[in-house]
């Protein structure tokens, strides 16, 4: 399982000259669950697109398992890093759900039973097993998004990168995304997700990275990033702590960024 490192990463978009990532150093160990949060346009999506080589650094380096990604093609990197876009329509192209999900593992050389079982497993993971023959465009937007997730899952990459996986999902959809992440984590895989959903972030990730104007301005466990003394900094990046953290603070409790932490602390301290 690879670890990932960004060293002095800068990305300036050639058209428009926007400095989207402005000097990021970040190490992500194998098997970590890392959430990236930040204001719209803070560079989150640009950052993660370097992990599988879709974007290349203007300056700085991306290391996958200690090896500079600059020397590897997108196809090579895709064997270890699977990236699911925010907008599924940038990704979906096939005429049926099954063909769509088969595309990735097929390109990795899977055939026969191995291919079939990867596809079945990925479809089941997102709850699309009974839609294998459906045309992707007959699915609603939220299921198209789950399809995009399945087609990356089917490649069983060591690293999963999810760009806003819960947007547009109903409660069941959010639960599916969470269980996909937890299962991947259980298998020792690395999961990196961009999200604006602070509840999802606080509940599902051990580490939170806060970006602002192309830089990492704060990082740590949810209890650290959403602790009272970080709120001003969060506010300056246009973010706010999840509700349980606010409630816990008003009740004089230690940092309680999740429902479970808040309820536990309330029952312990106040009965």
């Amino acid at each position, binding site marked *: 399982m690879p670890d990932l490192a960004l060293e002095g990463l800068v990305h300036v978009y050639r058209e428009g000259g926007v400095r989207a990532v402005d000097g990021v150093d970040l190490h992500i160990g194998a098997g970590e669950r890392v959430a990236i949060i930040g204001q719209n346009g803070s560079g989150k999506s640009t950052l993660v697109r370097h992990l599988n080589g879709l974007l290349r650094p203007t300056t700085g380096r991306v290391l996958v398992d200690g090896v500079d990604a600059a020397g590897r093609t997108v196809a090579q990197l895709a064997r270890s890093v699977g990236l699911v876009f925010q907008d599924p329509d940038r990704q979906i192209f096939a005429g049926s759900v099954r063909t769509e999900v088969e595309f990735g593992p097929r390109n990795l050389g899977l055939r026969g039973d191995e291919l079939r079982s990867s596809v079945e497993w990925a479809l089941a993971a997102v709850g699309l097993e009974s839609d294998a023959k459906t045309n992707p465009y007959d699915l609603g937007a939220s299921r198209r998004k789950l399809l995009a997730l399945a087609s990356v899952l089917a490649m069983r990459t060591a690293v999963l990168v999810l760009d806003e996986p819960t947007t547009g999902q109903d409660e069941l*959809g959010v639960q599916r995304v969470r269980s996909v992440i937890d299962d991947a984590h259980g298998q020792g895989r690395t999961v990196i997700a961009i999200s*604006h959903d602070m509840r999802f972030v606080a509940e599902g990730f051990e580490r939170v990275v806060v970006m602002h104007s192309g830089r990492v301005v704060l990082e740590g466990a949810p209890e650290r990033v959403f602790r009272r003394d970080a709120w001003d900094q969060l506010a300056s990046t246009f973010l706010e702590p999840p509700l349980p953290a*606010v409630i816990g603070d008003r009740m004089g409790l230690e940092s309680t960024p999740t429902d479970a932490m808040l309820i536990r602390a309330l029952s312990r301290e106040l009965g």
Partner: protein
Amino acid sequence: MLTLEGVSYRYAGATRASLRDVSLTLRDGEVLGVVGRSEAGKSTLCLVVSGLAPRTLGGTLSGRLLIDGRDAAGRAMHDMASDVAIGFQNPGTQLSGVATTVYEEVAFGPMNLGIGRDQVLRRTESSIDALAIRVLVDRDPDRLSGGQQQLVAIAGLLALAPRHLILDEPTAQLDPAGTRLVSDAIRRLAAGGASILIVEQKVDLLAGVCDRVMALDEGRVTLEGQAESVLANPALHALGVAEPSPTRLRRLATEAGVAARTIEVALSRAATEAADA
């Protein structure tokens, strides 16, 4: 005012209807939230109320859509569009594709309304400020982040100064601050007399902006009423809709044996904090 009377709609080539016998009245100055699990018919409702279905999309519609009491049957899309504005789920679909800067993009709608230049500029400026996108005005709309595109798309809708506005998950890709700007803008627009229909998964947002909430399931209206009571209705959870955060925390506290008074005190203190902020 927007009215649906017993509306059913089936997409072209579909075997079953996506909306079944839906009736609703959306009064001037009112914000109606629509909730429901995925594929319950929420986006279809947006398309029908805006007139795009069946005019542009084909399909079969029965029942009536009335705009300010006038039957919309037989009205052409360009005519409908001047009465009802719609914001799509995917901001990429919304953008004009012809504007080369964000400023032009926001001005694109009002420029096509045939109003005076001064008014176009005034509306463009105020929409840009309302959504805090001044820093983006010279950027290419196609080269923004997803969330930035969503803010620009909504600014473009505000610049139309619509009397009826339909929004399909307008804050899906927005950060918390952007979400708040959009909810403030919705409230201001409604206070000015616009009627607004908003589809959202973020129930906490709906609790803050809606007068009424309606739940759809398999194309039918299953719950409808005053926002607070519908959102607190336990039946909503069975329809695949998340509980508002206070409802969820009360339930979890009860399950854990935390005294009801404790969680009420905690919630009210947090509410005070939010009001102070």
